């Protein structure tokens, strides 16, 4: 099973994603903003980062810029989990190394688990607008 870093400022959602992913047998570490995620990266090398974009203190885009994932953490996949579909921020996230993007409010728990598994195994960076609810 994989090592996953969940970066989400909404405490209810962060808790829910962690429950779902642990239920699937993944090892999960939580962070509530980009800055905290950067700190966690020092001691935790994740296979996948589930990343929100709009967060206080440090947002997802800034985190991607600061962490330089494609260079420093080559094996780590990034799954953007946001409510900002079709936005310039999502396009920017792809340019900064994100692999996929899914829309939070469209995604049911069993689909979150499936999309995480797909992203972990995917070779390309194909995105999908909304996992079926």
């Amino acid at each position, binding site marked *: 099973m994989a090592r996953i870093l969940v970066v989400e400022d909404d405490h209810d959602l962060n808790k829910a994603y962690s429950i779902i992913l642990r239920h699937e047998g993944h090892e999960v570490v939580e962070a509530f903003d980009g800055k905290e995620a950067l700190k966690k990266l020092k001691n935790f090398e994740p296979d996948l980062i589930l990343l929100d974009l709009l967060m206080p203190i440090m947002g997802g885009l800034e985190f991607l810029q600061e962490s330089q994932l494609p260079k420093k953490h080559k094996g780590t996949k990034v799954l953007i989990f946001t409510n900002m579909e079709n936005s310039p921020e999502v396009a920017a996230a792809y*340019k900064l190394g994100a692999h996929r993007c899914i829309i939070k409010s469209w995604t049911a*728990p069993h689909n979150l688990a499936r999309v995480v598994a797909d992203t972990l195994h995917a070779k390309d*960076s194909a995105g999908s607008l909304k996992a079926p609810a």
Partner: protein
Amino acid sequence: MATTKKSDAILRQQQSEVEAMFTSLGEGALSTDEFGRITRVNPAAQYMLGFNESELIGAWFPKKVRALTFDEVPVNLIDRPITKAFLTGKPITEKMYYLRKDGQKLPVSINVSPIILDNKPLGAVEVFRDITLEQEVDRMKSEFISLASHQLRTPLSAIKTYTHMLFDGYMGDLNDAQKNSLNTIIGAANRMNELISTLLNITRMESGTIAVTPKVTRLDTIAEEVVKELTLMATGKSIKLSLSSRPKTGIKLTTDPLIVKEILTNLVSNGIKYTPEKGEVSIKLRSRQDNVVVEVYDSGWGIPKYSQDQIFSKFFRAHNIVKRETTGTGLGLYLVKGLVDALGGRIWFTSEEGKGTSFFVTLPHKVKSSARVKKLV
């Protein structure tokens, strides 16, 4: 002799009236001769453009006052409203930037009318209005809707996630009545989500910030996903939903898969929504040399002839539909049209009331990224 004197007096009075009107206009106004040289300019125009009267009178207007499009591309002489008014002999209305004397851009709404006497153009009168405030209000409105939509979605995400977790048994087993109730909550949350999605996309479309991120995409795979997601909706009305693709090996194109999916989902769900029970909805994909064509056919109620030219307008809903289906917003096709435009495609339809409708969308094999996205990164 007396008649001539009277005519002269009337003429002088009319000239004074025109002069007073021209001077007191709050909007910029100027007139030119048939070559586009400025013959008269009012104080508002001088103030807005930053030139004084002596600098403007006699100057060739298109050269003296430069114009830019809202994408900041210089407007060619042939595309200037005044030229168009001369060439067509008709009034022209357009919006663009005028460059002030100090180099500042001034967004203006322009109305030009040619002056024609005995079929000969004698010149033109142009009136222009500063629309800085309108643009600012528009931007603030878009920002507000966008922010409000995001804020609405955060609690909605939590409602959906935890409802699904309950439904999926993360917190223990449920009986059928409890599952049915949770299904009702999920359905309502989905409807709310659809509405927020549409509002967000329309806001982006209208403010020109819709992001196009091209990827090598399989159109047939996207269409299969859409069919899979909408099968439940179709079977609920015993509607036959089918998909065919030519060539059968699949259709590859470089486009934004998320936007294509949004377009297809809207067209197919509309087809199902506006087709009576036991009808048919089909999707046909064809790859051609120049582009890819998507046809979404439904055997539904159709669009009345008198409504057909308004079908892509915002908030428009056809009369024959409003009576049968009360839940629509009239935003779906307006959004689809904007998304197709963003991908460099075209959309049109054929429809007959009582028989059905076919929507056709063409998409280029390769779409360009949207310019605004490049600026962000």
